[in-house]
């Protein structure tokens, strides 16, 4: 197993556990819920085959689901996110082969582009998960409120997490 593989495995396990134990119980103002585990999907290297990305995303979602007793919701959202990763990055960074590092981060993309990429990924995921959870358009304002609040909270957390990990590696 290569160094990155080990790193990613550790990241996977740590973030999944952190989500299950700590972050699942956080609900700021009754609206904002942080989803830190999606950082694993966001940070996966672009050189990795899409099938692997999909598999990793699905299993990550499944693990978090089992811990939070919401079978199927997170796994579906994570699968969608994994599929949407490459198009979203292409949106902001069309010349992919010019990446300095295979993993998208502040270091490799620059803060503005990475910021946009991160924000879009987080927004996509939050929309997906809250729509699946509600499974209807009953009270759409509340759904929108939760999406927006969770997006901001998760975005800030992941920005911080990324700077910590990037400085470390």
């Amino acid at each position: 197993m290569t160094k990155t593989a080990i790193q990613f495995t550790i990241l996977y396990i740590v973030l999944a556990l952190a989500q299950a134990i700590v972050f699942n119980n956080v609900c700021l103002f009754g609206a904002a819920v942080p989803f830190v585990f999606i950082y694993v999907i966001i940070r996966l290297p672009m050189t990795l085959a899409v099938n692997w990305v999909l598999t990793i995303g699905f299993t990550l979602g499944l693990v978090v689901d089992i811990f939070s007793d919401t079978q199927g919701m997170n796994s579906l959202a994570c699968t969608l996110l994994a599929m949407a990763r490459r198009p979203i990055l292409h949106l902001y960074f069309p010349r992919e082969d010019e990446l300095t590092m295979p993993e998208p981060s502040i270091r490799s993309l620059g803060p503005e582009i990475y910021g946009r990429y991160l924000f879009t990924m987080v927004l996509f995921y939050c929309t997906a998960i809250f729509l699946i959870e509600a499974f209807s358009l009953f009270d759409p304002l509340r759904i929108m409120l939760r999406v927006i609040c969770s997006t901001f909270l998760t975005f800030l957390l992941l920005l911080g997490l990324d700077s910590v990990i990037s400085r470390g590696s």
Partner: protein
Amino acid sequence: MSTLWDFLLKYSRWFLFTFYVVVSCILLFDTNPYQHYVWMTSAGRVTSAIYGVAANVTSYFHLHDINEDLQRRTADLELEVIGLRNQLRAMNEKVYADSLAHDSVMQPFDFIIAHVISNSVSRTHNYITIEKGRLDSVRPEMGVVDQNGVVGIVNVVGDHSARVISLLNPKMRLSCKVKGRDYFGSLVWDGRNPGEAVLEEMPRHERFRKGDTIVTSGYSAVFPEGIPVGTIISHEKEHDDNFYALRIRLLTDFSTLSTVRVIANDMRQELDSLTAGEENDSRTNP
């Protein structure tokens, strides 16, 4: 085979993606109650719509058999209804008979309860038809009453029906008296008002009060004494100055006649034989 394999490899990501989505959806819909409910109800709605259309089409194939079955059932039901109606009529008669007040006047008489099948009040000569006849022991010259008062006299009798001369018929004159007194007169209908009749030939010296009851006098083989007929409204002068004529409001409501009783008088034969004997005497002894 190799092109298929190449195709599968090329789009492997999509197959994998679909597979993961399907597995997630199965987990989602099976275990979470709200999603399960939404899935079931929407699936149910779609299937019911399709089944509805299919049923609409296939229902036409069985129309012939359903038709036959319905006709058979209708015939059975109609027979049952007729049977039940007859039963109901028989019960009604029994109830009617039970509700009759026990007059001491009427005790020696038997009644035949009959339904009115034809009636009129607006003609100058009115007749009533009842649905009992000779086979029900109805004979001509029998009196007919209902729970309110006198109705008429049986005129013509068939096997299963009989014609009754109504009181509203100038041909019928009923011998009546004021209840409690013995002064008697002759009640006849003047053709004007079906609720009123005229009691003629009442002696002039008698005082009459409005509201007094008029009853049958009993001076006939047809009606026993004491059957109520009407009440006095007013008196009017007759062309003959020695006698009064009284206007009577009839107690019987002829326009709503439905069930009547035919008085089977056991005494009639005896009375008739007595009068027949008188006639024979007058013939033999001029």
